[in-house]
């Protein structure tokens, strides 16, 4: 008898919990349908972006909104959240990534406007001082995630060190046709590259990773050229239906203010980032 009572209590608790969850998301959906969106939920891709958003939060909220900022590091989860209605916008990705997400997940994400900033990708090294000093058989660390790996490989091609197959959208090491110096390209987590530079001859990563590891983001041997860089600007993404919403435009404006640009330039260093269209 006692066992049956406990079992019944557990089942009741679970059912009540599930109903509560259900009604919660229903409330959000009702608010989402409303014409005047007041509470904007924005997910940043990392703490640095979160800081940037918080810096302009006051100016944005003056226009009558409430901004809820969170950090979601996984871009797939972050994009899925917009698609399912748990977020209004995110600030995490560049156009190349967003496009590939839309293709594979039948998503409808669009950028509100131009990218907020364009981080350059740099070749950093603790062992060589110049790109010309890269010699036969050296080991270069590159990001292992698909979009940034592709950018690193295109960067190496632009520096004349690799030749890649033509007409490919996203490059991996399988599309390398020629590796003039027989460089060993080791794929690692791009955030780890600054810490392991002593184990490599050079590493290709973003200035933000160098900065967060305590190194100088502007100390690159080279940055990738604007022709490549302009595709990788970090933008504010929203669902297609909100593209022309007033709040979206206001958010874009707040993030493009001079104050925001100054923060970005100070954080990365002027040579490592672009804040306006190339």
């Amino acid at each position, binding site marked *: 008898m006692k066992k049956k009572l406990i079992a019944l209590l557990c089942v009741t608790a679970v059912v009540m919990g599930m109903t509560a969850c259900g009604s919660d998301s229903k409330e959000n959906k009702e608010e989402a349908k409303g014409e005047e969106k007041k509470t904007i939920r924005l997910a940043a891709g990392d703490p640095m972006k979160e800081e940037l958003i918080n810096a302009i939060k006051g100016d944005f909220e003056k226009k009558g909104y409430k901004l809820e900022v969170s950090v979601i590091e996984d871009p797939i989860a972050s994009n899925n959240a917009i698609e399912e209605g748990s977020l209004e916008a995110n600030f995490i990705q560049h156009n190349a990534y967003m496009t590939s997400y839309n*293709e594979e997940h039948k998503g409808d994400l669009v950028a509100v406007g131009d990218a907020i900033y364009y981080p350059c990708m740099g070749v950093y090294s603790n062992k060589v001082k110049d790109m010309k000093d890269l010699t036969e058989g050296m080991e270069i660390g590159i990001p*292992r995630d698909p979009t940034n790996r592709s950018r690193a490989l295109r960067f190496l091609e632009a520096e004349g060190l690799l030749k890649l197959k033509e007409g490919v959208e996203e490059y991996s090491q399988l599309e390398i046709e020629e590796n003039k110096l027989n460089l060993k390209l080791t794929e690692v987590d791009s955030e780890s590259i600054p810490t*392991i530079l002593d184990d490599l001859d050079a590493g290709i990563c973003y200035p933000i990773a160098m900065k967060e590891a305590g190194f100088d983001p502007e100390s690159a041997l080279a940055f990738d050229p604007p022709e490549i860089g302009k595709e990788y600007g970090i933008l504010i993404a929203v669902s297609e239906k909100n593209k022309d919403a007033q709040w979206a435009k206001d958010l874009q404006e707040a993030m493009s203010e001079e104050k925001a640009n100054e923060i970005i330039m100070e954080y990365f260093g002027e040579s490592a980032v672009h804040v306006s269209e190339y």
Partner: protein
Amino acid sequence: MNDPALVIKSVMMPALVESLYMTFWGTVFSCILGFGLAVILVVTAEDGLSPHKWVYRLLNVLVNTLRSFPFIILAVTIIPITRAVMGTSIGTNAALFPLVIVACPFVARVFEGNLKAVTPGMIEAAKAFGASNMQIIFKIMLKEAIPVMCISVTLVVISILGSSSMAGALGAGGLGNVALIYGYQSFNDLIMYGTVFILVVLVQTIQSIGNLLYNKLK
């Protein structure tokens, strides 16, 4: 998206070899070191053959502390040590260092349990016959515990296989890395679930071998 056949041949097969390499050597080294730790723990315990309170306590704390670290956290925390010991902090060989450090405490605990489960009566009888501690440990306890230790080793192998899936973050490759990068991040379900399937087959095989050994040896 990459052509699946090419990915299977050029990425998954090498990754399978990397995973097996890390799992095999990780198991060998952690079992040797872990067994040593387990013997010390069993012997110096209060009810052991040669109680030494402080040695036991210290070792206990060490084992518990190391067990608390998730593999990838430990791996990045000890990068300078790995570099000093292995010469580099990236690649399959370098990954063995944190893998073994994380697995040792786990091995020590399971082997400790196996050794302690040997019937106290047998140990008492051996003592009565005038057996030395070394003889008791290796001829009685180890011999009796070997069948269950096979089951334990099976657990260890599968656990190390799991830890090694994170080793890709530091350039060690492996199947976990393939599933994450070429599967999930490249939006390729075929590769992601295909890799999972290979892992399921591997684990099943390892478990079956363990069970077979247990039945043959008991």
